């Protein structure tokens, strides 16, 4: 091919990549715009302070109440419950796979984790209704197992594969030379794991946990199906809770468009968005703090 043609193709593709790239970014940027725009419409009707601190969510009452606090607390409760289960299990499993499992075991475990990750959330939610819910009700002698604990267990199952794979990758990516160096000065496998491997993999592990948190906060179907959806301030893990995502999923179906209630759901989405953003930014911050040790 002539040099001229080659150079024009080069320039041409440069613009193709650039334009598609920018278009995608524009679309994704529009999400934020849409959230903010609709939220502003909402805050023209309801004061932000009443929204954030209000203790009651009842948009269809005679005097509509748009207090989001119970929803935020519910989401937090379920997420923290899920993380309490998923973080130790996840890191433990990741370390086991990366450092202890024989290659054969590893080849069996990795697909298992990936299979777990592949199971759609609606299936997990379904099992929450038919297995975990009744199980909790039986064990704790409750009338009904649709509560925060149910949601937390299911979300833990959903967050686990993310945490395990990302953390395992990070642990695995720690150069063998680090380990050799540590063994070389007489450290045991456990010491090496805790003091060298996990710190060296920390960015990845924190990223893993953050991805897990993000997934738990934003998960919709599972909590929608499994937590009972009572818009109350939750009283504990056995209380029915209505998370932010479930609220949107339930109510968006039936609200007339362009009403205060409709905008309120977008406002919830905005809060949700910023919660996940916060989790991600925190993760990013820690990643950068650790990453400078890896700069070559």
């Amino acid at each position, binding site marked *: 091919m002539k040099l001229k043609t080659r150079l024009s193709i080069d320039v041409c593709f440069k613009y193709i990549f*650039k334009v598609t790239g920018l278009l995608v*970014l524009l679309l994704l940027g529009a999400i934020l715009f849409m959230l903010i725009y609709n939220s502003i419409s909402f805050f023209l009707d309801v004061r932000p302070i009443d929204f954030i601190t209000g203790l009651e969510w009842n948009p269809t009452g005679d005097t509509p109440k748009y207090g989001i606090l119970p929803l935020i607390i519910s989401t937090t409760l379920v997420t923290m419950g899920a993380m309490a289960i998923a973080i130790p299990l996840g890191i433990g499993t990741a370390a*086991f796979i990366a450092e202890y499992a024989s290659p054969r075991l590893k080849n069996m475990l990795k697909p298992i984790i990936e299979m777990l990750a592949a199971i759609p959330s609606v*299936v997990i939610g379904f099992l929450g*209704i038919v297995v975990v819910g009744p199980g909790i009700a039986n064990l704790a002698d409750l009338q009904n197992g649709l509560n925060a604990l149910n949601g937390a267990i299911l979300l833990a199952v959903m967050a686990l594969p993310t945490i395990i794979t990302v953390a395992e990758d990070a642990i695995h990516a720690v150069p063998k030379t680090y380990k050799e160096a540590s063994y070389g000065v007489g450290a045991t496998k*456990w010491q090496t794991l805790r003091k060298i491997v996990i710190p060296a993999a920390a960015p990845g592990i924190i990223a893993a946990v953050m991805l897990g948190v993000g997934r738990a906060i934003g998960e919709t179907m599972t909590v929608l199906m499994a937590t009972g959806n009572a818009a109350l301030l939750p009283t504990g893990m056995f209380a029915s809770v209505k998370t932010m995502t479930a609220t*949107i999923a339930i109510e968006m179906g039936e609200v007339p468009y362009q009403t205060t209630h409709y905008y309120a759901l977008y406002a919830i989405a905005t809060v949700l*968005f910023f919660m996940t953003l916060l989790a991600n930014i925190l993760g990013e911050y820690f990643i950068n703090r650790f990453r400078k040790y890896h700069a070559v």
Partner: protein
Amino acid sequence: MRFRAERITTIVEWGTLLLSTGLVCFFLVIILWEIVSKGAAVISAEFVLQVPKEGMTAGGILTPIIGTVLLTLLTALFAIPFGVCCAVYLQEYASNNWFTRTIRASIRNLSGVPSIIYGLFGLALFVQGLQFGTSLLAAGLTLGLLSLPYIITTAEEALMRIPNSMREAALAVGATKFETIRDVVLPSSMSGILTGVVLTLSRAAGETAPILFTGAAFYINQTRASVNQEFMALPYHLYMLSTQHQSIDAVRPIAYGTALVLVFVVFVLNLAAFYIRYTYRKNEN
């Protein structure tokens, strides 16, 4: 003395890790056992090849299967070219300044944005804004948007793994930037990109929240589909059968069957990803 104590701690440490791994496996076993044992009872050729009948208490799930397949195809058609091009742009062309760093961080964050928010966006943009109505097209594009950040990040990671020395090798023999990308960078990162794409699609196929308001229907009486019509989808079908249907006990077996088929579909996609990664890795070494 110290020796024995050491050995015991070793066993305890090892046991802790083994226990957590065991629990994770146990979760999967429970899930699969429940779905397979109860779902297998209703699975048959008819179940897969017949439309729902008698108010969905009988018959099969052909309509939602068709819907899910079409939806996933549409998602792929939109998300793959745009996602890969965007990744190439960011990784190979955009200069590394605060602007691109912000963009990259935003994309990472977008992959953490809850899927229901994509549903809202799809409703606002595709259904209402662009007047696609609640339809296969609107839902496919919504899922496509949802998939984009994943595809971009996995593709970018795959591109990033290609050492600069590989690019230098091509440039040093006089290749243009595009040729370098086409001949060296993309082929070497293909396994990573493809794996990411297939995994993302399997995720999209199982999503429910983004299609809640953008086009999934409770029931369709025809199996022919078009992009501007509503559709049935496996995950939505399962959700409806397990929470909305009138005779919840009568449809429970169908719900299990649907769950089994859905899980089967995503497992097949995952196997495909696994296979791609495996063959490419083999070729690379």
